[in-house]
């Protein structure tokens, strides 16, 4: 067995056997599911019904508002037009009303646009305000139309509602709403790559520092070249990362597959919702979930997973070379901070670019350029992949990424080789530059 594969094996085993690896691998998906369920539970919880008192002196709008009562349960409008306004103003708070909607009686209801008041101790939610404005606005529009002697029914029938059908040149149809899931999947994977790079890069750094502070490094490098040790360490640790990702993917895919069968979505490249399930009277939630799961199956899952592995490995190799060099340069982790900042920045930057530029325009200039720059491409490109990226772009970006890695690893190895034998002082940037020029 060659020396490097021995080192890779040791690094891999020592990472995988580590308790925190086992816990992370199996506990975090559970945690993820638990948090998701918890959040959806919270958002599905019905808030307490809030009662809104209405004093409509004009009597024009109150019916429209009260008609809203059985739509969603959150607000209940109560018609209190018969009670004196002054008394109402004093008593709404004690009477456990959320607020008082005050509509005056000043003749022509169509001139009320700015005259309606809502009195409350707490500020109402935006959705409530919009709802009230919408209901009253519609009523006023209707009154205006009537005043102009226009046929409201004919106008309503004349209005059209356009739905744009999205399709790719390759012919696959895409369904509306797919973009959300693309953003979600792309974002999740981009974020995951960042997390993995930082997590596993840190692992490499810690392991280098450990060998250095342990002084086992002297024994090791009397047997192997520092460069081989560094490469073995980086590769071994990356295998642990890939293993973790594969376990997560298998768990994730089985959950989705399970959910698909459960909800009657046909799995596979021709995924669609089976008609018998469609025809059954089912609630809105189930059909929404069905749609999303269908969209997930329609995504290029293989390319996304493969892309993740390729970009994780490339990005991780690149960054962990930096991490290894930093680990070699310092004596303990606290000293590493000043060198770590420039490494974290491009990672954070690429997540921002991903969430702002890619989501906005997956094939725009900014997205394309940053998916080529090696320090940002692992994250930005991964976020673009769910939207469909031309193969040549991926090829160029991967080539640049791995090419840069070979350049960087050469520099990192030089610093590493000098650094692992330097004890006791915290080097400056200038010193690191000097190390680059050392020979032998």
């Amino acid at each position, binding site marked *: *067995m060659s*020396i490097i594969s*021995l*080192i890779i094996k*040791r690094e891999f085993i*020592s990472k995988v056997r580590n308790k925190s690896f086992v816990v992370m691998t199996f506990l975090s998906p559970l945690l993820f599911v638990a948090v998701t369920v918890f959040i959806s539970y919270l958002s599905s919880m019905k808030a307490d019904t809030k009662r809104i008192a209405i004093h409509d002196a004009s009597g024009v709008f109150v019916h429209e508002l009260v008609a809203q009562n059985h739509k969603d349960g959150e607000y209940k409008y109560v018609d209190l037009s018969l009670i004196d306004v002054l008394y109402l103003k004093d008593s709404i708070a004690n009477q456990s009303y959320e607020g008082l909607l005050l509509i005056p009686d000043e003749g022509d209801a169509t001139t009320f646009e700015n005259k309606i008041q809502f009195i409350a101790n707490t500020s109402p939610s935006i959705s409530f305000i919009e709802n009230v404005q919408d209901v009253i606005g519609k009523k006023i529009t209707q009154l205006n139309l009537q005043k102009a002697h226009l046929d409201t029914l004919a106008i309503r029938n004349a209005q059209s509602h356009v739905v744009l059908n999205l399709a790719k040149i390759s012919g696959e149809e895409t369904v509306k709403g797919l973009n959300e899931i693309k953003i979600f999947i792309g974002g999740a994977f981009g974020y995951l790559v960042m997390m993995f790079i930082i997590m596993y890069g840190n692992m490499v750094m810690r392991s280098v520092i*450990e*060998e250095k*502070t*342990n*002084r*086992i490094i*002297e*024994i*090791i*490098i*009397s*047997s*192997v*070249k520092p460069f081989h040790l560094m490469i073995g360490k980086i590769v071994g640790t990356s295998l642990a990362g890939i293993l973790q990702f594969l376990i997560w993917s298998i768990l994730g895919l089985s959950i989705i597959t399970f959910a698909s069968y459960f909800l009657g979505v046909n799995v596979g490249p021709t995924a669609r919702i089976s008609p018998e399930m469609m025809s059954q009277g089912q609630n809105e939630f189930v059909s929404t979930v069905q749609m999303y799961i269908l969209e997930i199956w329609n995504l290029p899952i293989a390319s996304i997973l493969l892309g993740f592995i390729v970009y994780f490995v490339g990005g991780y190799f690149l960054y962990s070379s930096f991490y290894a060099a930093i680990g070699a340069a310092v004596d303990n982790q606290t000293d590493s901070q000043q060198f770590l900042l420039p490494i974290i920045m491009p990672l954070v930057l690429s997540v921002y670019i991903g969430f702002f530029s890619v989501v906005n325009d997956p094939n725009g200039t900014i997205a394309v350029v940053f998916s080529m720059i090696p320090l940002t491409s692992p994250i930005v490109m991964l976020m673009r992949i769910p939207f469909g990226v031309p193969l040549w772009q991926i090829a160029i970006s991967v080539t640049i990424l791995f090419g840069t890695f070979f350049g960087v690893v050469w520099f990192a190895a030089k610093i590493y080789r000098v650094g692992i*034998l330097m*004890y006791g002082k915290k080097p400056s940037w200038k010193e690191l530059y*000097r190390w680059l020029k*050392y*020979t*032998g």
Partner: protein
Amino acid sequence: MNNLLEVNKVVKQYGDYTALNEVSLNVPKGSIYGLLGPNGAGKTSLIRIINQITLPDSGEIILDGEKLQPKHIQHIGYLPEERGLYQSMKVGEQCLYLAQLKGLSKTEAKKQLEYWFDRLEIQGWWNKKIQELSKGMAQKIQFVVCVLHQPKLLILDEPFSGFDPVNANIIKDEILALKQKGTTILFSTHRMESVEELCDEIALIHQSNKLIEGKLNDVKRQFRTNSYEVGILTSDVEGLMFAITQKFTVSPAHFKSLNNELKLEINIGDATPNELLNLLVYKGQVTHFVEKIPSVNDIFIQTVSK
């Protein structure tokens, strides 16, 4: 080929600092060779070059007749002064790993490991983690690691530091046993008494230069002062002193004895010991007569403070 290791005019510079200035050494096969020198003399730099951890700026190293090259790694065993092991790795696994890095096959490594664990009576440690061992125990493991692959050249940098006297003795015996088997040992230390005890040859490096090299006895002969420690029982101290100071230089001496005699250190210069002895015998009862041989410690201090 008499020398296992030859270091020829090796120069190593770190920036403006010269760590080794044309240092040459000849380490005979099967010898225990003491590499002495104060802190910062350049010993570690030299050892790192021999271990191919760093390269010399100029000069060459010959190991067993061949120019030093990567394949020689498996013929060299190295116990660094600053040493450690992976804390959370099990003893057995760790030794196997380190032996395999030195080029041993797994089965061969296992065989050797069992032999050494038996020999040092540490069989029960195989599945222990290093962090569970005491410092002295861990050092035993480190010693095993550096001899597992049966190196031709064993480099020991302060091997006894951190050992209690019992374990230090065990290791000393093992070093001597290895020498019996033909292993050449390069032994770097500050502890001069272990040099006296173990080394056949010594070299002294000071401020990046080699100052002394040779067989231990030759070096001592070089530094002999022709002084003798004398113990004498006499009733006529004044007469004795007068007679001696006529011919020789005298100073008080300190050595252990059971008698209450006069203790003197006498430098005889160019005279022979017999001349001194004749004079002494005539004046009283001689209880002690020993040439004062310079200790390595004396030589070390004398050379370094020059």
